[in-house]
Every structure is written in C-alpha cells, then in structure tokens.
C-alpha cells in the first residue's frame, strides 16, 4: 500500500502547514476511525495500481470544447434565432450528461483541475457548462473539490479565495429555505462536502469557518466541521453551538425530505406548526 502512494504527486500549499502531507494525514485519519479517509486512500491505491484509470488532459480539453460547441448552438438559437428548433438539443439532457461527466473525473491531474475551473469561471456566451445561461454547478463540483489529487493552492483559492465567490451560485434565492433560515452567503455549496472531508487540512477548516462566520447566522459549515477528523481542539473551540444546533435541524429536516423544503421565493410558505417533520423526527430519529 505504501509503495503505491509513493507515486502520489502532491502539489502542496504552505497554508496547509509546513509539514502537511496529505497521505500521512489520511492514514492517521483512518486510525482515528474515519471511513471517508479509508475510502479516499482506497481510491488512490486503485488509481496507482490501474494506470488506465488516469485521464489525459487532452481528453478533458476535447470534452470541454465539445460541450462548448453544443451550448453555443443552443445560445445561437435562443438569442440569435439561428438554426432549426428540431436540431436543438434538450438543455436538461445536456446538463445531466455534464453532471455525469463530472462524476467520472477521478483520474484527472493538476492541469485538468485548473483547466476545468478556469473554463467555468472565465467564459463567453453560455460557456462549456451552460453557466452563461444561469446554470450552476457549485454543488456538482464537490467530487472534484474533495479529490485528493486537487492542487492545494487551487483548493484554497476555490474555498476561501476570490474564486470561491465566482463559483458560488449568484442567485441567492437558490440557497434560502424557509426554516431554518440557512443561506450559504455566497459560498459554493461544495464547501459543505469539503468541510466534512478529511482532505481539508486543519488550517483550511479553520479558514473556511472564519471566512463565512460573519456573513450571517447560522454559520453553514459548523456542523460538518464538527464531524471532520481534522478538526482539532482549536477549531472545535471556535464552533458556535447555535450554528451547530441550527445546522443539525437543517440536516435532520433534509433527511425527512418531502414537504418541508421550500425555496423562499418560489413556493408558498407551508404551515410549519402542522408540518410532519418533527413528528417524523420524533418517530424515526429521536425515538420517543
């Protein structure tokens, strides 16, 4: 197992700490009982033992250019009236294809990570992802963000740098739900996944929670950070009990699903006092 990890090209960033070593950190996390760390190391080992699993950068470029051409055809029809309606492909189907494509990129290298996010942030027309047509993938990027091969400087930039806000959904209403009022305040939604992932160093966890702390209440990442194996005693001390409680209720309600999740400006306000959530929570989760 150790010999496989010797091939791991770790692109470090001093902000993670002088001696930060991702593989060693993940191995220590496994000993602490982290199932996520075990899964990540298993994935890395598979990658190193199966050279065909790696995806060349040229393929990423070709795929992105293909998506660009297809979105451009849609844009030209919608905005300029070019083309025949029968020849224009369905946007939803293209989105599904892109989401699936994003899920299959575990084997990419540093150059491809940079290329994909640069293409996402800096684009013309509808872009390669349809982002110019108000489509947003900040949730779907989570698998790239928590990939251990992500260059660390890019990870920091997309988490707490200026690029984080540029990736986040500009339409705030997409993040606000009636109760508990929980908004990611311009943060990309993939930070929810990163906050719980053992690829986030202690320093990065600390910075994520600091950066988004003053943007509102509750702090959206406190509960996930609590369960991160890299949250040390100093990070834990800075967590806000009220944010942890409010995010806990949010997650439990999310688990219950169905009738409680309403976007603030889209659906009418439900009758919370009669909502089935807490009854379900009582029955299924709390058990009394």
């Amino acid at each position, binding site marked *: 197992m150790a010999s496989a990890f010797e091939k791991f090209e770790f692109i470090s960033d001093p902000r993670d700490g002088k001696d930060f070593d991702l593989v060693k950190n993940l191995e220590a996390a496994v000993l602490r009982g982290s199932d*996520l760390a075990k899964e990540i190391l298993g994935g890395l080992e598979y990658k190193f033992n199966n050279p065909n699993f790696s995806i060349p950068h040229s393929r990423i470029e070709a795929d992105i250019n293909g998506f660009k051409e297809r979105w451009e055809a849609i844009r030209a029809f919608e905005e300029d009236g070019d083309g025949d309606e029968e020849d224009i492909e369905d946007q939803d189907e293209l989105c599904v294809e892109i989401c699936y494509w994003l899920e299959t990129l575990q084997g990419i290298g540093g150059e491809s990570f940079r290329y994909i996010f640069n293409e996402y942030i800096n684009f013309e027309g509808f872009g390669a992802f349809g982002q110019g047509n108000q489509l947003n993938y900040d949730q779907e990027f989570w698998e790239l963000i928590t990939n251990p091969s992500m260059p660390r400087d890019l990870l920091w930039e997309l988490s707490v740098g200026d690029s984080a806000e540029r990736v986040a959904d500009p339409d705030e209403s997409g993040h606000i739900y009636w109760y508990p009022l929980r908004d990611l305040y311009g943060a990309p939604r993939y930070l929810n996944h990163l906050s719980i992932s053992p690829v986030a160093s202690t320093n990065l966890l600390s910075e994520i929670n600091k950066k988004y702390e003053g943007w509102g209440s509750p702090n959206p990442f406190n509960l996930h950070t609590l369960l991160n194996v890299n949250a040390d005693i100093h990070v834990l001390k800075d967590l806000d009990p009220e944010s*942890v409680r*409010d995010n806990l209720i949010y997650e439990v309600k999310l688990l219950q699903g169905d009738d409680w999740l309403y976007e603030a400006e889209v659906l009418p306000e439900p009758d919370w006092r009669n909502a089935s959530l807490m009854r379900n929570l009582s029955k299924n989760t709390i058990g009394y």
Partner: protein
Amino acid sequence: MAQRILNEEFVEKYDWILKPYFATSQGKLEYEEAKSAVENDFSKPSGIGALLIATRMSEEFKAGIVNIDDHLDSDSEVLRTLLYYHPDLTKKQKDALQKLGIIKLDNKVAELYKSAWNPDNPTMVM
C-alpha cells in the same frame, strides 16, 4: 471513489447523543421550540449544539492528541464544562473551572457530559 455523504450515515454519527438529550427536560424544551419556530429565532440555550461540540472535543483528549492540563484555563465555556465533568478531575481543578465559568446544566444533561468521557463511545468523525 464514492464519497457522497448520505444523510442517513451523517445522522448516525450523532443520533446516539440526540436520543438521550431530547429525553431530558432541557432537551424537551429545545425540541418543542424547534418544532414550533418559523425561523431560527430560538430563545432557549443551544444545549444540543454545545453537547455535540463537547462530545467531539472529548475524542481529542481520549485519542491523546491534547492534554487536559493544557486546557484547564481554556477561554471556551463548552470546553471548560466538558473538563469539569471529567471523572478524574480533583475538587481544586473543578473549583477553578467553575470560577472561570461553566454552562449551567440540569443533572440529566450533566450526566451526558460525564458520559462523553466513556472510552467506548462511537466516534463522531466521518
């Protein structure tokens, strides 16, 4: 590498703490308020939030990553409260923590802080 976090797995990590907490009188008050609130305007203390943080903190001590002696003068009320309920603390150490300030808890919730030190608790880390 399917790291997708399933909500069910997520809740399993703290479910074993939620059940006994929401069975206490303090927990019931908090639960009832959560049930009737229309937004995050709780008036009750965030007992469950503090308990979850404290329980997770206890793992750092039990794993030997940090020492109790280094944190007896902590600026964190949650941490001081957790340490106060450590079974091996001396009366002098407890008095010092109390002087610095700890969360006022009813007896049943205090028992949950004591049980956070149980070495056989499941880990909360994902």
